């Protein structure tokens, strides 16, 4: 059975997220920086009449930001009723990836890498948004498996 995934790029990093969790792909959004928050929280932005956190995936995935690539797209993702905005460099059309095309993380063994997909030309890691949100919201259940 094939899984719908959305390929995204965060500067040099090739990633994929579950398409079912992406509510919208927007252009660059303005956000309000909130002082005193964790480095992975860029701030807060307004979306459909509510305030949602803006997450920086780079520190969460152990990636380095060189700031050279503009984050022109903003993914609006929803996990267990929690909505967040994630700025990325690029978001592509949804693709269907079979389970046997997914392999355990080896190259991109970051905390929230659920699996890797090798398309031949490039390797992308599938970000486990469920685990990421669970950790961010302090619900430790199951997070140890991703450490």
């Amino acid at each position, binding site marked *: 059975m094939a899984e719908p995934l959305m390929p995204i790029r965060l500067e040099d990093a090739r990633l994929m997220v579950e398409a079912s969790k992406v509510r919208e792909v927007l252009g660059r959004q303005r956000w*309000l920086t*909130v002082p*005193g928050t964790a480095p992975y929280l860029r701030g807060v932005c307004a979306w459909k009449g509510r*305030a949602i*956190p803006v997450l920086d995936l780079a520190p969460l995935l152990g990636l380095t930001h060189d700031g050279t690539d503009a984050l022109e797209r903003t993914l609006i993702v929803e996990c267990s009723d929690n909505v967040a905005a994630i700025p990325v460099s690029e978001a592509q059309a949804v693709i269907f990836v079979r389970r046997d095309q997914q392999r355990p993380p080896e190259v991109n063994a970051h905390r929230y890498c659920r699996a890797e997909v090798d398309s031949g030309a490039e390797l992308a890691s599938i970000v486990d948004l469920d685990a990421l949100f669970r950790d961010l919201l302090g619900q430790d259940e199951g997070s140890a498996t991703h450490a």
Partner: protein
Amino acid sequence: MRDPKHSLIRAGSSLKLQDFLVFETHPCCVAIPARDVLRVTTTTDPTLHQFVDMGVCLGITPISGESASSDRALAPMLADDGWAILAPANMSLVTATPEQLLPLPQLLQIDDSVTAILEQAGDASALILSCEALLRRQRKLLKADSESDTTRVPEEGKS
């Protein structure tokens, strides 16, 4: 300052509007409910003797380069003992509809001094601060400072 009761509900309208004093600060603008403010005055106001610097409390700085401790002070209605909040000079009055007041997402609920977001023109434009929480936080800081001072003195004396 207007009577806050009048600023909340405008005559002839069923829409509950709320006034905010919005300050341009870095890295984000902040807003204080006008109903919490007794008057806007200066630091030389003789009735005031304790100040809360919202810049120090929240890690924000005024945009215009003026010092965080500008000579503008907000005397919160909650404080009846001479406490006031120091604020930057660049202030504007914004009237907001209930739809413009967005609850803070759970991930950003750091403490109770930031209560919500004020949305303007489709952007989340300012953090709404609670005067009460700011005063409470500053009092707690002062108390901790004075307690650490009293415990530090004998140690300094020893050395």
